[in-house]
C-alpha cells in the first residue's frame, strides 16, 4: 500500500509550508503530522516525507533517529515516560521505576504483550518542582507516589 496523507492532513501540511521561508524547515512539523497520521514513522513514511519536502531521504532518517520523540517502532497505547533526571531522582523516581517495572512486568524501553503500555525513562521534562513526574502520552502526572501510580494504571484502560 502506498503511504499518503489524508486530505485533511494535506491541508495542514500546506498551512505549515506557508509558514516557513524555506521548505526544508518544515521537516520537523511534517514528521509530527506523519507520526499523528501513521503512528509509526516507517521507512515508507520516511520516503513519503522526503518526497513531499524535496529533501534527501538521509536527512529524514537523521532527524528520525536524532530526536527521541519520533517513533520508529510501534509504541503501546499509553507511552509511560518517567523522568529519571536529578530532581526526580532526588525525590524517588527510581522507586517509581521499579514499581512500574513490577506492575507491568516489563523493563524500560519495552512494551507489554497486549500493546497497552510502553515504559520509557526520559531526561528532564521541566516539572522539577512537582517531582517525580510521569508523562503519559501528552499528559503529565506530578508529585508521583507508588499509590498514585497504581491508581493511574487502573484508570488507563
Amino acid at each position, binding site marked *: 500500500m502506498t503511504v499518503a496523507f489524508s486530505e485533511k492532513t494535506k491541508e495542514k501540511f500546506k498551512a505549515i509550508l506557508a509558514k516557513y521561508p524555506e521548505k526544508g524547515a518544515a521537516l*520537523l512539523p511534517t514528521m509530527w503530522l506523519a507520526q499523528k497520521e501513521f503512528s509509526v514513522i516507517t521507512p515508507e513514511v520516511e520516503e513519503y516525507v522526503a518526497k513531499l519536502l524535496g529533501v534527501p531521504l538521509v*536527512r529524514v532518517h*537523521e*532527524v528520525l533517529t536524532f*530526536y527521541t520523540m519520533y517513533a520508529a517502532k510501534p509504541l503501546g497505547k499509553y507511552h509511560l515516560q518517567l523522568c529519571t533526571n536529578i530532581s526526580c531522582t532526588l525525590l524517588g523516581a527510581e522507586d517509581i521505576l521499579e514499581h512500574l517495572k513490577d506492575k507491568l512486568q516489563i523493563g524500560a524501553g519495552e512494551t507489554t504483550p497486549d500493546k497497552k503500555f510502553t515504559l520509557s525513562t526520559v*531526561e*528532564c521534562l*521541566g516539572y522539577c*518542582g512537582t517531582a517525580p513526574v510521569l508523562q503519559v502520552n501528552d499528559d503529565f502526572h506530578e508529585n508521583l507516589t507508588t499509590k498514585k501510580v497504581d491508581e493511574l494504571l487502573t484508570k488507563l484502560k
Partner: protein
Amino acid sequence: MPKPILSKNFGKKNAHSLGVYIQDGGYEAMKKALTEMKPEQIIQEVDKSGLKGRGGAGFPVGKKWSFIPKEAPKPKYLVINADEGEPGTYKDRPIMECDPHAVVEGAIITCFAVGIHWAGIYVRGEYVKSIERLEGAINEAYAKGYLGKNILGMGFDLDMVVHRGAGAYICGEETGLLESFEGKKGQPRMKPPFPAIVGLFQGPTVINNVESIAAIPHIVKNGGEWFNGLGAPGIGGGVKLFPVSGHVKKPGIYELPMGTPLREIIYKHAGGIRGDKKLKAVIPGGASAPVLKPEEIDVPMEYANLAKIGSMMGSGAVIVMDEDTDLVKTLRVLMCFYAHESCGKCTPCREGTGWMAKIIKRIEKGEGESADLDTIVSIANGIRGRTLCPLGDAAVGPALSFVTKFRQEFEDYIKVGAG
C-alpha cells in the same frame, strides 16, 4: 516583597486569553514602542535595564540586539529559545502556559527595535500545552492586528511561528536550535560566524530566552532604570525567576531580585530543608552549574558573584540536596544525562561524557578504584574548552565539582560502598 512582574499571571484564571491580558494593561508597551519610540530608544532602555540573557549564558540583551547589522543582504530573524531542558529548570513553561501574550508582545517590541519581520519560537516537543497556548495567543494577536501586515497602522509587518522540537537537550544550545529550526538534526555550528551575523536561514538572528522576551514589555512600559532598580542594591539587573527543586519544604518558582542570597532562597522562600535535615549540597543554576557546599550559600544569586566562587548562574535553577543524598548516584544520573545528550559532533564531548558515565556507574556498583576519581578529573580537563558548544563544559561542571568538593564521600564509597 515587591509585586511580581514575570510571574504575576501564574495560576491566574484565563490570564492566557487576550481579553484578560489587555484588561491588565497588556499590549500598552507595544503601543508605546511602536507609536512613541524610535527603535534605538528601545534598545537603549533594554541596555539600561541591565537585563541579561535568562537562558543561561547571561549575555546583556540590549548588547546582543545591537550586534545585528542594520542593513543586511538577507532577512533578519528573531528566534525565541523555549527548549527548556536544563535539569532543574521549569520557569519558562508557566510563562508560556499562563502568560503567552507577554511572549508575543515582547517579540513584537523586539522585532520592531531590531528591524525584524519574522519571529519563531522553538518550544521543546514535550511542552504541548505551552505550544497550544502560544498558538492561541498568536492567532488572537493576528485577529486583533497586532501581528501581520501594517501593525497599528505604523507600516510595520511581523509574522510569528511556533516550531515544535522533538526531544534533544542540545537544541537548547543556540546554533543547535537553529539547525533544528531549519529541519535538521540539532548539531551545533562552528562559531564564528555568530548567529547575529549568520543565523537562521543564513540571516542575522537574535536569539533570546522566553524569560528575557517576557521581561521586555515591562521594561518598555516602566523604563530600563526602573527594571534595573529591581535588582539587589549594588547589583541591579532586575528580577529573575528562580525555580527551586529537590529536598526543600516548598519547591516552586520564586520571582526575586537579581542578587538575592542563595541562603535566603533556600531557607526563607523555599521553606528550608525537608524534615529539617542538614543541607549537603546545592546546585545553583541548573545541572551544569558546579555544585556548592553549605558554607558557600551566602553568595548573591547573580552572574558575576557566582562566577567568582567557581560556579555559574545558568538558568537560576536551584537544586537542593539534603544530608542523606547519595552523591555518587546523583553524579551518575547527571553523567548519564550528558552522555545521552551529547550530539556526537565533537570527539572530546562524545567520548568523554561516555567515559565519565561508565566510570561513575562502576563506582556506584562497588567496583570502583581510587584512581577512578583522578581519571574523571583528567577526562573532564580533557573536555573543557575543546568543544564547539558548551555541552562539553556543562558536563565538566558537575563532574569536577562533585569529585573534588566531595572527594571523601567518593573515596569512602569506593572503599566500603554506599552508606
